[in-house]
Every structure is written in C-alpha cells, then in structure tokens.
C-alpha cells in the first residue's frame, strides 16, 4: 500500500494501519446487513498464554471479542475448609499457598487478623522485618509478572532476566527463613526468627543492583515498538467502572485513582517510610505495565529505609500465650515449658469474634476474614483475593478489542489462579 499524505514522522506501518477501517464501519458500509457469525472459542484451561489454569469462553465476531466469560475452579484446593480444621498456628502455611506469588502477603493478612482478634502487639523490629520481606515479595511478584507477560508478547529474554533477579530475592528468603517459597516466616505476633548475620549486607547489595536492572528492563521495553503497539491504547477502562467492579491495586492506580492501603490505612509501620504511589492516566495496558514497573523502584526505597532504621528489640511478641518461648528458657523456666507444651499440642485460644483485615498485595486489596468461636481452631477463614475480584473486569476491558489484545490484557491483569480459586 502506498503511504498516504500523512506527516512524514509516522512510520509506514502506522500509515497503513490508519487506512484500515474499524469493524463498525465495515458493517455500516455493507448496507447494514450483518453477515456476522458469532463464534464461541474456548481458551481452555491448558493454554500457553493463560496465566495458570484459567478458562475463557470468548465470543468472537471475526477477530473482535464481543463477550467473554471466565470459568474458574480448576485449582480449587479447599484452602478455607482445610484452615477450619487446623490450629491457628498451623493455618499459616495453608493460607500462604493461596496466592502463590505473594505468600508473605497471605500470611500477613491472616496474622494481622488473628493479632487483632487476640489483641497481640507486634514489636517494632518485627514490623520492620515484615515490611522488608513484604516489599521483597512485591518485587519478586512483579518480576514474575513482567517476565511472563512480555513472554506472552514474544519477548523471551526478559523472562530469563527477571528470573535472574528473582533468584537473588529467593536467596535472601532462604537466608532468613530456610525456604525459597512458602516460608512460614510470619507468625502470629511477629516473625519466626531474627535475620542472620550477612542478611543485611546481601540485601544492600541487592538493593544496589535492582534499580539498575529495572532501568535495563525499562530501556528494553518502554519505547519498544512492539510493546507500544500491543499495549498503548489497548483495552482501557475508566476508574469509575473499575470501582464498581471492585478492582483495586495497580489496575485501579493505572486508571488514575491513587488508592493504596499502605498510605490510606497504614499497617505494620508503613507510615514510617516515605514512598510514592505511581499512578497512570489513561488506564490502558501500557499504564498498567508502567505502574507496576515503577512500583519496583518504590519498593526498593521502602526496603532501604526499613533496613536503615531497623530497631533493636524482640522479633516476636513476648506474650507467651501466643508465641513460643525461646529455647534456652525451656531449660530453666517451668512456665516456659508449660507454655511451649500447650502451644505445640493444642495451640493458643482466641477470644470469639470476627475480624476483616485488609492489606495491599501486589494485585490489590488482599484481606483475611477470620471468625473465631473461642476454641483453638478458627471457625471461618476467608481470604478476599484481589485477582478473584479483578477477573470480573476482564470482560469489560476486552469488549470490542482483538484477540491479541485479549492476550495482552490477561497478562496485564496479573491473575494468579491460586488466589482466584483458593
């Protein structure tokens, strides 16, 4: 096709694009007779582009998505039911495996709820350690999101770069708790163990590297023609619709609403740290990508401040009714022995009541609702998962766009099926 008389700055590809008529005009031009055939396509649970086992029933008119129905439940694990069967302490590893990329956040929401119910104070050092691990987990979650999303768009090397950074973070987790994922590091009342020597030094090294690496990702992706074509202007959704759909997190911030629970209702000493909230303007896929990339820098800042200001003190509450006594006390103190025995066999009892504890996870508002009936096992544990609620926005976002945009939007939505299905 010959280029039209457009300003010489537009590339030939873009000029050709402008001359292709949108679908609505085609139907009009064919005299209003719609020879449309709606095709229902099944993006089955096994598909290279769905993040986890998400099934989408897509109604297509040609290549344009007219409607979309997500079908979930393929990783339903009965986490909430299993949690009713276990003592409060033992629920922590169960609940961690829900939103499997942000395991510290799951544990934080649950521990915060139980701490509110049992009126347990968390010492300052434990709060700072919690913040450090939460923000490290936020970076790790965003790295996997970035790697898998641009893998869907075709950029395979970014995936390997992101995994390289994530290995550094998982090394830090392994240093502090012994496991890379699902670490059981957060306990009711604090953290299970203090950080070892060498952790701070390794963390500082990581904090020096991470912004530079994030700059590299930005340099590759921000002005990349393919990324711009696929993400800029595709599938925008305004903040009002998002709010009515219950969407929070980077999706809402990309649309312009700066709602972040770390700033609005600070928990675990977040108000001690100075950080900004990246906010987008249009709410299209590019803004969602940019907001998450910017959040990585902010998280690095928070960790630096937390590490610099890390206070001395206990790493778990001194309340022996809730937290295990240190092992050296068991040799000398009878009460410590009895407490240890009671905690390990039966677990601690929590006064009856109901609490809903929301925190800000990498995907939005993650909340834990705990109902206790006075015994040592919770009567109901419900995790309000952000991906579960955000998924309802997918059909609104992709109405009227192409299949390729659907793939990009699913990637930018950052759904974690473990959280959706629980």
């Amino acid at each position, binding site marked *: 096709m010959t280029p039209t008389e457009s300003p010489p700055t537009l590339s030939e590809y873009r000029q050709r694009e402008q001359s292709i008529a949108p679908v609505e005009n085609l139907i009009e031009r064919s005299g209003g007779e719609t020879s449309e055939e709606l095709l229902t396509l099944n993006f089955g649970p*096994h598909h290279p582009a769905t993040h*986890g086992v998400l099934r989408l029933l897509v109604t297509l008119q040609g290549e344009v998505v007219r409607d979309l129905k997500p079908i979930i439940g393929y990783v339903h*694990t009965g986490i909430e*039911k299993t949690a009713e069967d276990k003592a409060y302490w033992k629920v922590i590893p169960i609940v961690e495996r829900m939103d*499997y*990329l942000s395991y510290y956040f799951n544990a934080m929401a649950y521990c915060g709820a139980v701490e509110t119910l049992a009126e347990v104070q968390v010492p300052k050092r434990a709060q700072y350690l919690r913040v450090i691990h939460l923000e490290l987990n936020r970076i790790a979650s965003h790295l996997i999101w970035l790697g898998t999303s641009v893998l869907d768009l075709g950029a395979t090397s970014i*995936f390997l770069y992101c995994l390289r950074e994530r290995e550094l973070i*998982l090394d830090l987790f392994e240093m502090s708790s012994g496991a890379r994922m699902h670490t059981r590091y957060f306990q009711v009342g604090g953290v299970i163990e203090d950080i070892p020597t060498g952790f701070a030094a390794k963390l500082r090294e990581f904090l020096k590297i991470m912004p530079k690496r994030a700059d590299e990702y930005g340099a590759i992706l921000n002005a990349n023609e393919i990324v711009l074509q696929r993400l800029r202007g595709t599938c925008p959704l305004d903040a009002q619709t998002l709010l009515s759909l219950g969407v929070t997190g980077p999706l809402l911030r990309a649309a312009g609403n700066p709602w972040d629970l770390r700033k609005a209702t600070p928990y675990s000493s977040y108000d001690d740290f100075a950080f900004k909230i990246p906010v987008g303007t249009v709410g299209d896929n590019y803004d969602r990508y940019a907001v998450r990339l910017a959040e990585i820098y902010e998280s690095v800042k928070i960790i630096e401040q937390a590490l610099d200001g890390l206070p001395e003190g206990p790493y778990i509450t001194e309340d022996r009714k809730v937290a295990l006594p240190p092992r050296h006390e068991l040799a000398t103190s009878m009460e410590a022995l009895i407490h240890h025995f009671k905690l390990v066999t039966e677990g601690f009892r929590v006064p009856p009541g109901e609490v809903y504890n929301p925190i800000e996870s990498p995907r939005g508002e993650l909340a834990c609702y705990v109902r206790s009936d006075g015994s040592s096992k919770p009567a109901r544990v419900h995790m309000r998962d952000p991906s579960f609620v955000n998924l309802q926005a997918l059909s609104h976002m992709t109405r009227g766009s192409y299949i390729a945009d659907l793939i990009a939007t699913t990637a930018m939505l950052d759904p974690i099926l473990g959280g959706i299905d629980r």
Partner: protein
Amino acid sequence: MEVKREPIRRREGSSLSAGTVPVDAELLRVRRLNAPQLLRGGDLQGPNQPAHLEGTELERYVEERMLTTTLDKAVAWARSNSFFPLGFGLACCAMEQFHTAGARMDIARFGFEAFRASPRQADLIILAGRVSIKMAPIIRRLYDQMLEPKWAISMGACCSSMGVFNNYALVPADKFMPIDVHVPGCPPRPEALMHGILKLRKLVQDDPDMGWRERYGAVGTEERPEDA
C-alpha cells in the same frame, strides 16, 4: 577415578605445536580398545585382550561389540537426552519450574528447554501443582493426547500424594494417570526437580534407580503386614 594423563607420543622430527602433531593412530586404536578394561580395573595382558588381536580377529571383535550396543539402546539414549516437556504449570510448583528453566539451574544444559505448547508435540508432562477434581479429567485428556513414548513427572507433594491439603477438592495424580517419577517438596527446589528429571532420564536409558534400599544396603527393612 584417577585419570592418567600421558603425553601423546610424537613421531621423530615433528614439530611441537599441538593440533598439527600427527598422533600415532595405532596407539590410539589400542587405547580405545583397552579403555573398558582399564575402567573396570581389569587385566590388560591376558590372552583375550583386544590389544593382542590383529586383522580379521580384531574386526570380528569390534563387530560383536557393535551389535550388542543395539538399536534400542541408541534410541533410548537419544530419547532420554531430548525430552520435550509440556509447558504445564498448575500452581506454586510452576514458579519453581520456571526457575528450573531459568539461568541458574539451567534445564537447557541437559537439552530439555524446548517446552512445547501442544501435547501432541511433547513427550514429558510435568504436573507442577495441585490437581483439583475439576482439572483431573482435563489432565487425563492431555495425557491421552500425547504420543507414545511418553512419561509423566509428578512435581510437588500435592500431586504426588495429597500434599499439604488432605481434603475434598484434590486428587493425587496416581489415581487417574500413570506417573513415572514423583518429586517431593512443597515446592521442590529447582535442583530437586532437576534430580527428578535426571532420574527419569536414567529410567529411560534402561538403567533405572532401584531405590534407596539398594544404595544403602537396607534390604530387609521393609514394613510387612505379618511383622505388625
């Protein structure tokens, strides 16, 4: 195993630069034939040793050795070194599966980095994550769509047994499909998954690991009903 390094014997009058030195071909042939005996710590000087065979006897000796390395073994070697895993991650174990494919624990060094999207092109399905009752028939259908020969690795505690969650919603993978290797862990480290895949490779090469009892000389420690 001690490796003896001997300088390559050179013919008189040749230059000393490596690479252009004409090596004694006969010496190399003798060494190649003696190598199995050397490795097994055998005797090189006996009457049936190939070093002393010449001419047609030597040719017959070599032919026999070639035939015992049958086509099956060669094919098994080829298959085991080029698994095409099906890109199939269910839950948390999928994150560790990504790390196995990442740069630190590189699955590509073994040749297994070609994750295929379609089950018809894959021969190894790595069930990474928990299998819920809604997903089980779909996995079975995927497994049926794969072409023979095919293998299955059950990665993680949730699909090998019920894992952390022993409840109504999960099903262990053994109940609906044959699994070759179970990798325990929650989630298993990338090294653990790699160990499992290499165990599968040994199995395919017809040299399966008989288990820890043989390794530790612990035969006789099995729990039997009559002993209870």
